[in-house]
């Protein structure tokens, strides 16, 4: 019984929980119900042995539960002990150690087992052992190619090495994409600014609730024009991206192509305003050496003493 119970202990816990639902008919549950019933029989026979004539159902249940817990614990500990010694199947000595650990006097066990008035309990009815779910079968198991002798181990299951392309159907709905991008950016921005506001000084628009709509405090900077005039790194990054993805631009402009083409003819010359990118003549660097600009000339060393440029007049 003991070992039987032990083997089933793993699934008992879960079984007892779901067992309450009477309608269950799955083989696994049937199996577990049968085990439990056997356990109950054990408990009742022990009770009878002790001289009880009847027991309340609740008491029975409690005792069964206790018994089950005890056995489960023994099983678990035995397993742990065995795994500790790098084995996978518990041996008798594992169980013995466990029992000792749990404060059980093992020596009394043989005596107890051989006591006269013990009852013989029938083995639990043989039900279908729960089916171990089959390993995932992905694709055909490969056989050895011809150049590999057959005594070599077989290929492992295909799922261990087969690559299944698992990309989801890309969300092609434009609206959803935009929606997502927008709300994502907004969330990031909000979280970031809230964080900044929480960690630094703030100003508030409301006197009564300072935490509502916190504004990061305005801090004067020593050279304010720099941050105001220079493009931020983010902008520079986008600029580079757009430059490199010139192709994208073209597709984009196609949307507006009607506009653009009409503009060329339009009388308005606004688009003359910007030249296509700040064009600076090439080879400027070379030229610069030849440029005769007084500000590029080297600074002269002072000549002699007090040779201030007096007026040549």
């Amino acid at each position, binding site marked *: 019984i003991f070992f039987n119970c032990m083997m089933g202990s793993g699934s008992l816990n879960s079984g007892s929980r779901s067992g309450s639902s009477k309608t269950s008919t799955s083989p696994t549950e049937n199996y577990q119900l049968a085990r439990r019933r056997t356990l109950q029989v054990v408990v009742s026979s022990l009770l009878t042995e002790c001289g009880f004539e009847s027991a309340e159902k609740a008491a029975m249940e409690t005792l069964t539960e206790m018994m089950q817990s005890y056995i489960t614990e023994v099983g678990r500990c035995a397993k742990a002990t065995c795994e500790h010694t790098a084995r996978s199947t518990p041996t008798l000595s594992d169980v013995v150690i466990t029992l000792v650990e749990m404060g059980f006097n093992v020596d009394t066990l043989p005596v107890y087992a051989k006591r006269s008035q013990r009852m013989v309990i029938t083995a639990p009815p043989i039900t279908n052992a729960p089916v171990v779910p089959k390993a995932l079968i992905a694709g055909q198991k490969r056989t050895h190619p011809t150049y590999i002798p057959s005594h070599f181990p077989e290929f492992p299951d295909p799922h261990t090495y087969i690559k299944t392309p698992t990309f989801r159907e890309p969300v092609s709905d434009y609206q959803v994409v935009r929606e997502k991008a927008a709300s994502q950016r907004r969330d990031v921005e909000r979280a970031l600014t809230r964080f*900044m506001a929480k960690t630094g000084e703030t100003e508030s*628009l409301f006197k009564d609730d300072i935490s509502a709509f916190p504004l990061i405090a305005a801090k004067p900077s020593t050279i304010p*024009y*720099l941050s105001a*005039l220079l493009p931020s790194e983010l902008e520079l990054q986008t600029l580079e991206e757009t430059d490199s993805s010139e192709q994208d631009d073209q597709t984009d402009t196609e949307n507006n192509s009607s506009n653009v083409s009409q503009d060329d003819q339009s009388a308005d*010359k606004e688009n003359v305003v910007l030249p296509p990118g700040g064009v600076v003549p090439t080879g400027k660097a070379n030229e610069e050496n030849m440029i005769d600009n007084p500000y590029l*000339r080297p600074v002269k060393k002072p000549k002699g003493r007090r040779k201030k440029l007096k007026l040549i007049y």
Partner: protein
Amino acid sequence: MNRKKDKGFESPRPYKLTHQVVCINNIKSFFRDKSVIGYVELTIFPTVMNLNRIKLEASSARIYRVRVNDLEGLHSFTNDPTLEVCHHESKQRNLNYFSSAYTAAVSAVDPDAGNGELSIKVPSELWKQGDEMKVMKVYIEFSLDQPKGGLHFVVPDVDGSMAERAAHVFSFGNQNSTRFWFPCVDSYSELCTWKLEFTVDASMVAVSCGDLVETVYTHDMRKKTFHYMLPIPTAAPNISLAVGPFEILVDPYMHEVTHFCLPQLLPLLKQTMSYLHEIFEFYEEILTCRYPYSCFKTVFVDEAYVQVSSYASMSIFSTNLLHSGMIIDQTPVTRRCLAQALAQQFFGCFISRMSWSDEWVLKGISGYIYGLYLKKTFGVNEYRHWIKEELDKIVEYELKMGGVLLHPTFSGGKEKDNPTPHLHFSIRHPHTLSWEYYKMFQCKAHLVMRLIENRISMEFMLQVFNKLLSLASTASSQKYQSHMWSQMLVSTSGFLKSISNVSGKDIGPLIKQWVDQSGVVKFFGSFAFNRKRNVLELEIRQDYTSSGTQKYVGPIKVTVQELDGSFNHTLQIEENSLKHDIPCHSKSRRNKKKKIPLMNGEEVDMDLSAMDADSPLLWIRIDPDMSILRKVEFEQADFMWQYQLRFERDVVAQEEAISALEIFPTPASRLALTDILEQDQCFYKVRIQACFCLAKIANSMMSTWTGPPAMKSLFTRMFCCKSCPNIVKTNNFINFQSYFLQKTMPVAMALLRDVQNLCPKEVLNFILDLIKYNDNRKNKFSDNYYRAELIDALTNSLTPAISINNEVRTVDNLNTDVRLILEEITRFLNMEKLLPSYRNTITVSCLRAIRMLQKNGHIPSDPSLFKSYAQYGHFVDVRIAALEAVIDYTRVDRSSSELQWLLDLVQNDPVHYIRHEILSMLAKNPPFTKAADSLLCNEALVDQLWKLMNSGTCHDWRLRCDAVNLYYTLFGLTRPSCLPLPELGLVLNLKEKKAVLNPTIKSEQGPGGPEVTTTMAFTSTLEEEHVVMEPALSGVAMAPQGLKRKAETPLGSSPEPGQVMQEEPSAKASVKSKFPTQEEEDIDMDTVHDSQAFIYHHLNMLERPSTPGKEPSSVEQAMLSMPGTPMPTLSKESTSSKHGDHHHHHHHHEHKKKKKKHKHKHKHKHKHESKDKDRDSHAFSNSPASGRSIRSPSLSD
């Protein structure tokens, strides 16, 4: 001397300057102490015998040593009168007095009149030399210690060397202000050649006028000396200097042009300057003249005084004009600034002016050629739009403020013949002008140049310019001895003479009309079509009586678009002819199917169903070429305006049509505007204007409007995705017209209102969606201006909150829409801290939005946020926006502490531009005006402002004029009404009496003290609000009339929505207690007797001086002449009996009065003197008070 060539130019000085050396060496560290030490040496030729005194300008410089030809000279400051205009002891507080005193002070040091504050006594040894007309060299050592004007130091407060800190200094000033940084002849008409030397730290660059000859290290190798030579005769005001750790960029197209910017900005400088050569080429081509100087330098500095200032061969710009290639909006603005600066290089720097009254020629020509550049670069549409804008501006200004006179002539030089009596300042000197006036002056000058061009053709015009330039450049290459230099000075007469020489046309009438005379023309036009005669009867009337207008006589062009084509007619406007008959060419509706020819030769199909079947007229335009400085109000039917909008190709006509359509909210107008909006070919500024007009029309048509809100479907079609119309496309601003339209449409849409006068929910959500889905990742250009305008749109959508009994605004009772808006604004503003946008446009818009939320009562009104953004150290645009909000708060909440804070900033802020802007914004949005009473208006404020303009702003002409302007806005020309009046004479101030009678109006009790204005004002000045009580009955009889008129007009400005009225109970109580008898009285003064009694009654009120404070003398002055009538006892009785509790107070006052009594005896004398100055002193003699004082015992007896 042989002055034949001088064309009448007479130097006002007894000598002629030929050469000047300026040497500034930073013996002490230039930047750490902000001090300058140097010397100047002027080479002069005496032109009179026995030259014994030389007058120069040297404001605020400390002079150590003066030598004339190596002999020690004596120098003395002729105490600069502009330092303190009116002397301290003077209690005069009226602006008339100040203006004349200020003008006199400026005249006293006017270099154009040969005056100056530094007077050097020529050693007697040299007097003899005068006979031989020998050269004299005047050597002056000077220093400036932390100059307030002239040089501006920018020294950021960070660690590191001065170069690392980007510390720099540059010269600045309004007009001729060079005197503030070195002694000179500070006149535009005194030319000389220059040698300039600046010794600066080795890490710095000194940029100045002329050619950099060489740069030499000092002996310790830690400093460099920059040697500049300017061989072209130049006036001192055109000399400038900029020193800083500049990055140097040699123009890739023109190697003689060098650009300088502050560290780290070089990439922006490259981008910004990439098109300067085009401007150069353009000007050189049209003027057929090479750029006069051998080099050109542009320097971009922080905290610039003005955006653009031009000096000989260099220009100083604000660093904020720099931009990267991603910025759309700033690019045209910066280009315009560069073009302006360059135009002024030719006219303004190279060619200077003879006198201040010739300034218009220089400003006119430079403005005019700048306009030509605009036309070439930005297109004809943009040019015409600009001309219209400028014309509208000048017309609006002149009609509001009175005429702008381009060429004032002052015969005899006396103040009496003031050509512009309507102005509160004198136009005799550039330094007395209000800044606004000067801007308008420039605007008018270039418009007049355009009128001259219309008259003599552009070709001749350019020939004239070429002639001026070539004469000048010939002269400039001559030695001084040839006396040719005055050719480089332009004068009105010389300019007109070359026009008549070149063109052979007489433009005298034109000049007389627009240059010698101020004012614009105001036309009213209407027409009728006479079917029988097939004649258009046009009536053109003029208003030439109101201020700022003048009468026009001469030709006027009228364009009539008929069915058969467009026809120009030139009508003659004469004295008495109002009606003009214009024969029509086409019969109505004869050719139904024909296309209609337009002015430009185009033929178009039109749907003629809208027009009047009897008339062949499609539209009529008066003065379509804007060849008169005028405002035209023309009446024609709505369908005619619609035709004009759709089919007239001139942008000016289209814009006129749009503004006319505002008053025709019909479906047809809606359609016309929508069509224009959709037309790609249409000029984008017209389309932008159409947006706003459409919003207005939609609001007027609210009840009959069908379909989605105006412009929504249009915007969706143009800018949103095809598949999901609620989402805007990712930004792509490659097409600028679309970009500008995309920016503007939401702003205009937000102005829409529904029946409850709220912004429709649909529109608000639409704008919020635009913000949400805005995606700039694929865009080549920055979207900062776009996002800023989306915030502006949110601002526009705000409407006043429904407030219940001044309930305090809390987070909980926030309107849900407002919560959404606030959410966005908070996020934007916070993001700006992490990723600042270009010129912080988004912060600027957010601040405006927050102020609007406060103003509309959605969130509690509080200036502290704005004050923190207004601090020094924020970007200047942000500061201005924040200050604007504080100023608005000051007005709405009548906060004296904020006003005080602003005025403190005016005195102490390091940035000149900010000081100037505070004052001009205060003048534009004043906390109170002379027309209305306010708690803020008190004696302390008057004193403070007076001090500010009297002496506090002596280093900056512009600021002083701003202060004068503000003073004028707040108090008017006469003595501020809140002051107790020192003058004699009895004038019944009805306005203030009203303040007493009506308990809802606050008295002018300042928070500073218990100073309540006198209920009866005694003054000798005569103003509209004051009625002089003449001894006869007539004056008294007038009083009730005036009273009633006043009573009808609301006094205080109605409180803003959501504003919590801060009626101080204490103030109220004090008013009550002081005037107990009148409190609830509704005085009906139908009879003379009644009103007389009323006046006596009020006179008695004065018995108890209500101003125990600072100026007792003035009140008592008034009382001196008061009739000792039996009335006082009566009133005393009433006060004491009714308000015994105030008795104590009363005694207190009397006590004080006694104490002060002896004091006013000597003041009395002073008052008599000042009385003479008062122009209205004659009113005094008429007053009953004076008359009675003879009869009855005066208090002073």
